[in-house]
């Protein structure tokens, strides 16, 4: 590998400069709503029992039949938060007849409100205004369809159909948007306005950890169909990465299909690399080798993320007695992320690869930005709707290309996504929680 694990020492001043500039551009966060949210998140972090109860409630909320059922679940779950005074008070309010209805109402609204913060719309049509608003504010989007776990072929068909419809709906709408030169072209060429992220696990019920070929065979036709729609509508299709159990099938399937002759001219497509994986450096090399050797008209985008299944991977590995596939420790993880960023940014020089740095960690962002600036590389940043909104604004203000990951779907489907995001946001290792708790800029920009 060409890149060393440590950044060049002369990069430090540039990282610091970019980081401070971005921090200064972050919205003040002093609106009453932002302050209230911050207080709530802080409270949840300090009170693990309450945090668990609230997340379990968020999870079960869509399955509750009526207000009474909502109140019953809320009361039972809060009552389980034994060490939490606030939890006990809430439990009493949810079970007492006089306060039950009000408590259930507020809780249900709270969940709905949170869900809407993260979710851009219920379906393709209702997501258009949100995506257009982003575009007009100077940021692109990638849309992700939330859904139930796919356990049948019919569910896989329905997911694929929703994806195709979303591509067409967004493409029709995007034709009317004003020009945004930064978002529509980079050093490697034109960039599609419409961008959809897909989950292979939703495209087949056959993803099996011990048999990647079964999942590949199960999903191939549907993914191929979506690639054709993306090509014909001129959109970008991005394949999301999921749990470690599925990474082999997802990677192999994506690379195989994109190597097929019919996709030589397009669509623009990409995949995700999870920086928390122990094997991620090798994995990146494999992706880069493939992309360099590939004969295609459009570059291959690699979105570098930290990875959203950290807790899941640790628990699974511990349960089975396996060594963990994810890097343990925030600093080691961040260091790996930076090394991968540099390797990926270097690889953009050939024009065959695009780099998307997806992170909310100000230090990781500043590092990638400074490195790309130093190399004269043209890269993209990505954030999650609801979590990275402030970061997005700061990046736009800094003149960077930025894309917002926007889930869409109904509230039932949105819950597991929401819980995962909230877990991430309130974990003690989270950069966002450090930022929210008011850590100073030197600490936030410290090299990992």
């Amino acid at each position: 590998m060409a890149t060393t694990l440590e950044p060049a020492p002369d990069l430090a001043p540039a990282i610091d400069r970019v980081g401070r500039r971005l921090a200064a551009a972050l919205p003040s966060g002093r609106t009453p709503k932002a302050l209230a949210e911050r207080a709530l998140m802080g409270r949840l972090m300090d009170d693990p029992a309450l945090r668990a109860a609230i997340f379990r409630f968020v999870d079960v909320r869509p399955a509750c039949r009526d207000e009474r059922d909502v109140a019953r679940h809320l009361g039972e779950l809060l009552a389980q938060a034994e060490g939490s005074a606030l939890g006990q008070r809430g439990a009493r309010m949810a079970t007492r007849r006089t306060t039950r209805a009000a408590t259930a109402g507020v809780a249900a609204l709270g969940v709905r409100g949170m869900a809407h913060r993260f979710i851009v719309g219920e379906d393709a049509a209702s997501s258009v205004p949100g995506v257009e608003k982003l575009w007009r504010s100077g940021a692109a989007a990638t849309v992700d369809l939330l859904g139930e776990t796919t356990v049948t072929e019919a569910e896989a068909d329905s997911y694929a159909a929703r994806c195709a419809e979303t591509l067409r709906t967004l493409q029709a709408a995007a034709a009317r948007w004003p020009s945004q030169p930064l978002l529509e072209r980079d050093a490697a060429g034109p960039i599609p306005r419409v961008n959809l992220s897909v989950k292979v696990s939703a495209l087949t019920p056959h993803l099996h950890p011990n048999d990647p070929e079964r999942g590949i065979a199960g999903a191939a036709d549907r993914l191929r169909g979506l690639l054709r729609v993306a090509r014909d509508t001129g959109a970008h299709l991005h394949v999301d990465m999921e749990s470690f159990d599925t990474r082999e099938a997802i990677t192999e399937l994506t690379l195989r299909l994109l190597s097929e002759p019919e996709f030589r001219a397009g669509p623009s497509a990409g995949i995700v690399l999870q920086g928390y994986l122990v094997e991620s450096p090798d994995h990146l090399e494999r992706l880069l080798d493939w992309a360099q050797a590939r004969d295609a008209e459009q570059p291959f985008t690699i979105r570098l993320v930290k990875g959203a299944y950290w807790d899941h991977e640790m628990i699974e590995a511990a349960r089975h007695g396996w060594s963990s596939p994810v890097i343990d420790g925030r600093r080691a993880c961040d260091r790996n992320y930076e090394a991968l960023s540099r390797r990926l940014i270097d690889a953009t020089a050939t024009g065959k690869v695009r780099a998307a740095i997806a992170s909310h960690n100000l230090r990781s962002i500043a590092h990638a930005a400074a490195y790309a600036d130093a190399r004269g590389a043209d890269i993209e940043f990505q954030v999650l709707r609801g979590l990275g909104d402030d970061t997005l604004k700061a990046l736009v203000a800094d003149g960077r290309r930025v894309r917002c990951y926007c889930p869409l779907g109904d509230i039932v489907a949105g819950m597991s996504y929401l819980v995962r995001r909230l877990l991430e946001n309130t974990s003690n290792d989270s950069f966002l929680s450090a930022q929210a708790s008011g850590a100073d800029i030197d600490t936030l920009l410290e090299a990992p």
Partner: protein
Amino acid sequence: MSITPFMNEPALELRRAEVRARATAALEALDARLPLDVPVLIGADERAGEAFDSVDPAQPSRVVARVQGASAAQADEAVRVATAAQPAWAERTHHERAEIVRRAAALLRSRRLEAAALALRECGKPWAEADADVGEAIDFLEYYALSAAALDDGRPLLQMPGERNALRYVGRGVAAVIAPWNFPLAIPTGMVSAALVTGNAVVLKPAEQSPACGDLIVRTLHDAGVPRDVLHLLPGGDEPGRALVAHPLVHTIAFTGSCAAGLSILSEAAKVGPEQGHLKKVVAEMGGKNCIIVDADADLDDAVPGILKSAFAFAGQKCSAASRVLVHEAIADELVARLKGAVDTLVVGPPEAFGTDVPPVIDPEAQERIARYTQLGGTPAATVDVPEEGFYAAPALFVDLPKDSPVVTDEIFGPVLSVERVRDVDHGLQEMERSRFALTGGLYSRSPATIAAVERRAPVGNLYVNQPCTGAMVGRQPFGGGRLSGTGPKAGGPDYLLQFVEARSVSEDTVRHGVLG
């Protein structure tokens, strides 16, 4: 002796390609050695008997082992050799025996893939399940070795001045172990090692369908240091099994298998023969007709795959397998629709294919029995085509059958699942309550109060909440049920060894001429 805390043997990480490659290589190496020879083992002698073949259920033309079936006379001889050898074995300390059993765990660990490959070929167990079978066998060896050391200390008793009171546990004598084929390594290893480590001599009669696995266990224990005359192997069918149960010198019968066979053993073992000066003890693990209750607030994204795994993994041939789903009527239609679609996705195929969901069943008798029940149920709501060659049985899902349908009431021991609507969880519990079996049960619910209520009221031996109702782990989910599901020992639990010992209470007066000892 320092005691390391018990940890389960890690599962093979089959999600990694290099691990799968090693597994496949081990299977090829085994295939090259087939058929194996399995003799009758009495003491150090390998004996011939009435020969029969053990075949691969996925490809019956492949002979896994040429086996010598033991006769009643050989069973008698094995018991007599064991009887003579047992006192010396019992004289050793628990620690000594525990060390030997732990050595067997280490040996089995070193032959892990080979053993899993054998279970795969002989019983049609898919890789993940065959590997779990070896893992559980190793777990039993380690866990019972640790438990024996603890048992050796006896139990604390009240001590008065001038009095020394002790409670000790000693082996009962000769144990006959009659084992099933569905966990061809784990279950016999568990029963045999529990008996051995507590000072009993053992005669193992493995299932007729899994003699080579039985042979592997016995040889592993011999290699680890169990004296030849303390552990014997009697492959075969009914004849050696019946002879063992009726034998006057057998003290303990440890049995896992069907309810009918278990009941017959229990009544036979109650008879006291002329040469017999003791009561036989029967440790029996029998069948199940296991229900999963799905409440209205269940997460169906978890419930559907969980039910599928509980009912159809290893073709439903586990006593813990789910055969009834009792679903809250409010979500019944949705669950049924998703389950039907999910059953359609099941892959039926040979056990060596890593993507196989449903392997063949054990033999043509099982195939016929399952087909008979499926016919009694009428037209399944969902079913899957199966390969021509091999003992395959089509997975079948039935919905809303009458409560007295044999599909709902009988243990089928195959890939057949029935879904019934209930008014609520309480109604589901009543259905569970009506069953003659009480082995495992499942619940999918997100209400802490509902979970607590079912935990209190479900009559089953093993209740699984928001997860599949199979796959009990040694030291984590001690396994066994009540009612007609068995005599209630908890395999892999802290009390299991007590089934194989007698307690002796000793009290000494230590006062001599007024002097306290």
